[in-house]
């Protein structure tokens, strides 16, 4: 019991740093909006309602929400988080980055195949020398289905040029 009690008082006194970070992001968003629409503020015309009106209101509400978040963080109102594993997330993000970089260079199939392999590694299939080729074959089939049959325009590379 006493241990529980300690936990609780500590969480009440110490602010939740992640919540403070979220509040900061909201405040920064508000500031960006506020400064970006500053140049539009005298465009209201006769009714004083212009392109800056609504952004200003939204920025003000964002500030209020940031303050509310800070209050909630001190009151310990933020939910407990489950433990997050960063490594698998990093694999998936690496896959998405690789696809982004490669897609203009080598076309849809190879770039997306690399994404497939790296993401699969994030979910536990670590033998990427198998999963990347599997992904490329799969994506080539998808390319054929969508670009050739359904006529969706997908970026072509050396592999795709074989069937054009």
């Amino acid at each position: 019991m006493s241990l529980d009690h300690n936990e609780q008082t500590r969480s009440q006194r110490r602010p939740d740093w992640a919540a403070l970070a979220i509040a900061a992001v909201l405040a920064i968003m508000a500031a960006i909006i506020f400064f970006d629409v500053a140049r539009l503020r005298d465009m209201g015309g006769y009714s004083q309602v212009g392109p800056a009106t609504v952004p200003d209101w939204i920025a003000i509400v964002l500030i209020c929400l940031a303050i509310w978040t800070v209050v909630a963080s001190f009151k310990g109102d933020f939910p407990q988080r489950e433990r997050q594993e960063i490594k698998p997330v990093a694999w998936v993000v690496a896959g998405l980055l690789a696809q982004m970089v490669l897609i203009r260079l080598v076309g849809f199939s190879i770039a997306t195949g690399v994404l497939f392999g790296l993401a699969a590694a994030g979910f536990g299939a670590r033998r990427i020398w198998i999963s990347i080729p599997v992904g490329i074959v799969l994506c080539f089939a998808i390319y054929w289905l969508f670009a050739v049959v359904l006529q969706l325009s997908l970026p072509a590379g050396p592999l795709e040029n074989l069937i054009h």
Partner: protein
Amino acid sequence: MSTFDFLMQGLVSAMEPINLLYALIGVTLGTMVGVLPGIGPATTVALLLPVTYQLDPTGSLIMFAGIYYGGMYGGSTTSILLNTPGESASIITALEGNKMARAGRGGPALATSAIGSFVAGLIATLALAFVAPYIVKLALVFGPREYFALMVLAFVTVSSAFGNSALRGLTSLFIGLALSLVGIDQLTGQNRLSFGVPDLLDGIEVTTMAVAMFAIGETLFIAAQGAQAPDKVEAIRGSVWMTAKDWARSWKPWLRGTVIGFPIGAMPAGGAEIGTFLSYAAEKRLSNHPEEFGNGAIEGVAGPEAANNASAAGTLVPLLTLGLPTSATAAIMLAGFQQYGLQPGPLLFATNPQLVWGLIASLLIANLMLLVLNLPLVGLWVRLLTIPKPWLYSGILVFATLGTIGANPSVFELGMLLVFGLVAYVMRVFDYPIAPVIVGLILGPLAEQQLRRALSISQGDVTTLVQSPIAAVLLGLAAIALILPLVLRLRGRGNVLTQMAASED
């Protein structure tokens, strides 16, 4: 012409062989993606929207209707056999349905859910057809301030009325609203928040955002849970057909669920899950076997499933007649209309009746196809659930990026997908709801337009917003929906609201 004539005309257009084919492709893809664990109808629709890009508007919307209904059928299958509801409206189905599956009655559970969805979809779609013209007439007297008030009400109910925390709901909503400012202002042509990046002049694509927020965010979140024990798929033992007793216990809940679900979906007041909870409570009270509830009562699957589908059809009432999406799925459907420059609303019924009625008719046809597709073939869909996790989620990512690349093959767009996927992941970790972001993004510019029109007419006088009785009542309702939950939570009664959390739809 009467509603009936319009509907018949719509049916004729939907029955053309090519349109039947589109509908079939739609329901098949919809079921296939919807059955994947953790993917609800909103994600399904967002993932598959780009598939319809190359078709003409009618064909595309017909395929789309199929995807929408298919995604919902697929979602129920996952809830029953895997106990991972892809959306909050399936939580109840998972509750009773999964218990039935564990007790070896998965077949009848799937059957009552499929037939119940069919019955509810049929009645609710017909109700949509007959209610819509009246709402259209009503909408014609709506001015800018009434529209604005209606949108404010939708904002409040989507973001803060239900769920764990008004703070987090409102924060999500305002993130969406802030992002909706990006691009060229529609009334003056001024750039806002585009920082000289040409890709941002058109604003942030709703489909990119929806795919990033739902599909990528969810995938990252599941990846971060690490290697846990794999979810257990319940095998379907025995027949999928229901016994006479099952029928006798099911038909009343189907009808009651429909009657409860449709009006709730049709009101601009939150998503389908409220109807499912009410239906579940009603069935529990009326049942002759109350002791079975919690241990796999068939009424507890039949009623809520019917309510779920009926309110999904109900959501189309404000979407088609007022252009007002009240759920994430409806918001993405609105994006689907907008890609053809079509703005749903009273005008669309006047200028493009064959399109609207073709869509409504094809919902009826998609519903019928799904019944045929689901009952005998359910074993095939279940096999999709046994795909190993690495291949499953990699495949989802391939599809997610495929849509974005197909819509706009630019590195910038893929970058946005990644950035907002990470944002959605962080939001999930801290228990922020996702749907309000999407609704804010798509409804924000519309609400701003109406507000500025109203204020221009009144020459900047804000009190004009409450001087029309309709607008005043709507804003009053919004205020109650905002304040009442806060009071309830302060008094420690928040549990009821938490149970009604709108996580996705």
